[in-house]
């Protein structure tokens, strides 16, 4: 009887412990539960650079001389053809006058030669008649013919001299015209690099005095950003982008990829980058400052109206052929569901099959999620419960928000 009592007590004790363990472990694990939502998922590439006007003309001098007058200030609006700057024209004026005199001299010389030639031709006609009647010998006749030919050649040479002189005149007049710098476009003066009295030098770059001023067209704004070579293949002309400028951090400007450089260039950190120009939709904003630092998010792959879940909700099996799965919460129980995923960003994954919109899934904390078993009881953790977000970060992945799912994301 005593033995039976001990055996019953032993078995009873085990059953009691099993019961306690079951009911207590059945007390649901506190996890974060979120709804599966439908929306936009966008894969993006981040790049930084500067904002400039699309048309930005650097004016350089084609003549060397001292600046006599500057008619504009930096920031002034100008129209095409407006006077901007004058280089002392005196020397060029004199040059034009000299060449013009040469032209006139050549004209006079041609006129004289024409008269001389006409005279020779008349003499030649007379010699011809006299030669026919035998009053002059053949030598005298041929001498006059040679004189006429030589005079015609001389006239042609003088005409060539005239052409050369006129060309010189054109050139001199052109140089004279170039002493007055005019605005090539409607725009604003965005840089003024010289002062009156300074000497500017033609035909050189990157030295002081070679660049006079910049005139830009503010009607179109371009963000010029450097995209790393690892990301460049996914960037294509026409893709949408969002640009944030350091000067206006609260405003997101929309833009489109306008051009992509074909050759990489090495930046200061010896990374290969490609210059990508984004045409900024500036809406009603006005830009009167240039070279503003900006950061652009270029959307390289966008899917609209798709089911997506936070990236931390998706786990991978360790099989040789890994499969993705999530835990769907049904009646307080977490059910393991295999999923087929689509595009993925840093914070969201598109779900092509496996779970549907409106389903509730476990999104963390990561350590609890990782330890979760199929059919384990779960419950929504309180917003401020300990470790609510403390251990969900895995390698930089994770989100800061407690509630809903962010639809638009980037990397």
């Amino acid at each position: 009887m005593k033995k039976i009592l001990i055996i019953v007590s032993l078995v009873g004790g085990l059953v009691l412990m099993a019961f306690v363990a079951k009911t207590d472990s059945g007390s649901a694990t506190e996890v974060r539960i979120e709804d599966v939502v439908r929306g936009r998922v966008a894969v993006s590439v981040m790049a930084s650079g500067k904002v400039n006007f699309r048309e930005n003309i650097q004016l350089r001098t084609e003549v060397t001389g001292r600046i006599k007058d500057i008619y504009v200030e930096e920031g002034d609006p100008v129209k095409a053809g407006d006077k901007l700057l004058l280089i002392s024209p005196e020397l060029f004026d004199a040059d034009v006058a000299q060449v013009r005199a040469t032209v006139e001299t050549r004209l006079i010389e041609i006129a004289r030669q024409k008269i001389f030639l006409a005279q020779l031709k008349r003499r030649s006609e007379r010699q011809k008649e006299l030669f026919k009647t035998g009053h002059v010998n053949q030598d005298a006749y041929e001498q006059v013919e040679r004189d006429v030919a030589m005079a015609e050649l001389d006239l042609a040479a003088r005409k060539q001299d005239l052409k050369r002189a006129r060309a010189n005149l054109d050139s001199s007049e052109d140089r004279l015209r170039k002493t007055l710098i005019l605005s090539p476009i409607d725009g604003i003066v965005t840089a003024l690099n010289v002062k009156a009295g300074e000497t500017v030098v033609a035909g050189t770059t990157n030295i002081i005095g070679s660049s006079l001023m910049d005139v830009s067209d503010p009607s179109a704004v371009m963000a010029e950003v450097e995209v790393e070579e690892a990301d460049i293949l996914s960037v294509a002309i026409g893709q949408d982008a969002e640009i944030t400028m350091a000067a206006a951090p609260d405003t997101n400007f929309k833009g489109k990829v306008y051009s992509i450089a074909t050759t990489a260039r090495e930046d200061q950190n010896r990374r290969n980058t490609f210059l990508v120009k984004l045409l900024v939709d500036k809406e009603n904003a006005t830009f009167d400052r240039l070279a503003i630092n900006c950061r652009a998010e270029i959307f390289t792959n966008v899917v609209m109206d798709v089911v997506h879940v936070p990236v931390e909700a998706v786990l991978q099996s360790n099989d040789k052929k890994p499969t993705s799965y999530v835990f769907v919460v049904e009646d307080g129980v977490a059910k393991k569901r295999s999923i087929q995923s689509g595009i993925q960003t840093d914070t969201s994954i598109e779900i092509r099959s496996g779970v549907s919109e409106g389903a509730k899934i476990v999104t963390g904390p990561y350590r609890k999620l990782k330890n979760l078993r199929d059919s384990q009881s779960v419950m929504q953790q309180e917003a401020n419960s300990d470790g609510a977000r403390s251990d969900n970060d895995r390698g930089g992945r994770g989100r800061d928000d407690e509630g809903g799912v962010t639809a638009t994301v980037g990397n």
Partner: protein
Amino acid sequence: MSQSETLQSTSLMSGLIDIYVDPKKALSAADEQSGWTMLPLALVLMVPAVMVAYYFQTVDFNWFIDQMAAASPEEFPEEAIEFLSPTVMMTTGVIGATISGLVGVVLNGLYLHFLAKITTTDSRKYGAWFRLAVWAAMPAAIIGVLAALLNYMLAGTNQVGLDDLAFYSVNSLFTHIPMGQPGASVMNALTPFTLWTVALTGMGLHLWTGRTMGKSLILAAIPAIIVYSVWSVVSFG
């Protein structure tokens, strides 16, 4: 009650049953039967080893690796995951269970031996105290493993963690510390069966040395108190 007045188990097999239902008889007999060591020792070592082998042959191994990686405070290297296979885990698990079981009874035997040497004029050699340690550990080892096995087989899934098998651990019953968290290991190791082993050891001391039952229980509990206290400090610290 002196030893001579205590009834004893008449055979090894009856001793193996009596240790559950009438431990005084089994422990009294074990004191006099020096050959009653190997079979209970084999049971103490082999039953957990067989359980570990069975577990790794049947568990969802990919799931198990996932759990292990998740519990690891460090990033689990890819090479380590590739190296781990059910056979590797089973081999290391069996060896680990056997060695830890052996170390447990060897140390407890040593403790009892030195206790007797220091506090009494007892002439028993180490082998006798080792036998007591083995007999005291055997019921808890076997019942604990059988309970875990039953729990595993009735779970309805092969995604059950090793720690979850021991539904009778303090962690499963009360603390519910997630695997890998501070204190989880000590709370998983601490079970009511630990008290059973202590109680049987105390009873053995009482029967073998004639000390009072209360004093014997306290002396028997000292190793467990020290081990679990240090482990707790290290684990929670």
